[in-house]
């Protein structure tokens, strides 16, 4: 009685085994790398907005301070989104008839807020506080990226827990004098205090910063 399988069975077996192995490797590798892709993190991906607001123009060009619109960033967990009113302080004077700004005017006229599409978002169980970061010399651009050169806003960082922890464990490289946190053009110079000096000056203790309770409660 001849054997059950023909010689191709061996090739098939190998094929199946190697495919399974390759699939496994791909899966594991994919699971490893996928979270770091921009597709997953949305870093650098522009969100469509009802009004094509350009930070590049307002911040980079006109030199508006971040706090002009994001008023509560120094005192609150939330940086705050500008009310329509804030837009209209200028745009009742300039570009008063621009087609682009129609939704803003409409918002003021009808009292309906503008609905922006969110760019930076955290899950519900993460409690982030802007004010403390700003107070300790973490600049806007450190997390939000080069906002002054964003014609339309995109996400500046992955906002992953691992990304948060990188800085919470070793804040020094990301610190700057807190006078400069809103300066989008800031560059480290020879006279700039080092990150370690800033940590001492601002009483930053990384050994307490990776506690779960810092962000979760």
């Amino acid at each position, binding site marked *: *009685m001849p*054997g*059950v*399988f023909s010689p191709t069975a061996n090739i098939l077996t190998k094929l199946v085994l190697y495919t399974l192995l390759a699939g496994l490797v791909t899966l594991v590798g994919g699971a*490893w790398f996928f*979270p770091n892709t921009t597709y997953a993190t949305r870093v650098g991906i522009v969100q469509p907005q009802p009004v094509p607001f350009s930070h590049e123009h307002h911040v980079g060009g006109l030199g508006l301070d971040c706090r002009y619109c994001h008023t509560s960033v120094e005192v609150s967990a939330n940086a705050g989104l500008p009310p329509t009113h804030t837009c209209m302080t200028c745009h009742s004077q300039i570009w008063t008839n621009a087609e682009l700004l129609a939704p803003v005017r409409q918002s003021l006229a009808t009292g309906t807020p503008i609905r922006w599409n969110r760019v930076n978002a955290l899950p519900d169980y993460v409690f982030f506080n802007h004010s403390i970061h700003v107070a300790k010399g973490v600049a806007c651009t450190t997390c939000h990226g080069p906002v002054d050169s964003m014609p339309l806003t995109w996400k500046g960082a*992955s906002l*992953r*827990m*691992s990304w948060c*922890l990188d800085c919470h464990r070793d804040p020094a490289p990301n610190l700057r004098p807190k006078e400069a946190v809103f300066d989008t053009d800031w560059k480290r110079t020879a006279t700039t205090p080092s990150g370690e000096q800033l940590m001492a000056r601002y009483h930053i203790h990384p050994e307490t910063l990776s506690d779960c309770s810092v962000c979760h409660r």
Partner: protein
Amino acid sequence: MSAMPETERNLTRVVEPGVTAPAVTAHVSDLVLERRTPLWWWVGFGLSFGLFVLFLVAVGWLFIRGIGIWGIDWPIAWGFAIGNYVWWVGMASGGTLISALFFLTRSEWRSATSRIAETMTVFCVACAGIMPVIHLGRWWYFYWLFPYPNTMVLWPQFRSPLHWDFVAILVYVAGSLLFWYVGLLPDFATLRDRARRRWQRVLYGLLALGWQGSSQHWRQFRMLYGLFAALMAPLVCSIHSIVGLDFAGGLTPGWHETQFPPYFVFGAALSGFAVVLMLVIPLRRALELTGVITQRHIDVLARLMLTASLLLSYCYLIEIFMPFYRGEEREITVAMSLLGGYYAPWYWAKIVLNSIVPQILWVRSVRLNRPLLFLVALGVVIGMWIERYVIVVGSLHRNHSESSWFVFIPTVWDWATLAGSVGLFLTGFFLALRFIPMVSMFELRELLRKKQTEGGR
């Protein structure tokens, strides 16, 4: 080989006279390959499958609603599921102990029963493995117990006895499956070579992986099987020790006992032997294996059960003795509540079923009385479930915080999950009966050869 000879009263023979290797091979493989599926199988499978469906319903509802459908409460946050888990994993030990431990001791009686026992182990472990997962409040995150790199940079908490347990059950599942499968390879080859239907040849051909039975194969096989056996024996002890540590690692009075690791090993062995006995007694008739699974086998299993029962009884004694010896007030409270409290009926039931009733096995005629033996084993299996139930629930209900003292009242879903898990086991086992040779044919050939040479001398 339907007329397998049998000598009812002989307790020394592991093989009845007149049984030959070819006959065993033919009979065992014909059971799988040729026999028409008997009626008892359909009936048994049907009932089992019904219970299995019950399991699916219970677990489905559990997944939809949450574990609140069970009776667990505060302070008794563990209930049936953990008890069931310990119970199943305990019974699973039977197969491993018989296959691995008694392989190492070269016990002759092991050969004919090892396959039944191992198959039982595999499905018991499956039932056991499911329990801790479904008992999680958020079972869909069970994979967080795996140490894998993640964007949260988080790891499991390796100090937790539960994590030890998780690792242990994982390894035990892998070990039981591999041990079982490796042992099946030569038999699958036999089936492949004996099968006449194409699907059978393909199926068993695939399962046999191309086993040739060459001396090279046999050499590696014996080496690996020996190694596995040498590993599985401590592994089975380790898993039950770790299960014991699940409790002993806690502060809860009644759990915080240094004797728990061996206690759980003995308990596991007792239930393991009992369930093997429960399977062997009917199966040797149903599968007409009386020639190779003899009264000797049953006697040995009964003696093992008695031994394990004695070991466990010692632990029971210590369990009550230690609190009073140490004078620890809260431990005494638990002990007293076991002896005379809300769970006392359960406690005494376990004592009767696990410690007292098995003592009749001292009597030879009882060991020869298979129906009675079956009942004793059934009692032990039930008693062992009760033991775990009492450990889990009885201790928690008299914990350190008197103001939280409360009782556990199981719901219909608790019972459904328990009954359903029996269905899961039986469904798997019945399917195995149909597709897997229930006696290790190559081992019997070896055994018969050994008997032959011994007889020849």
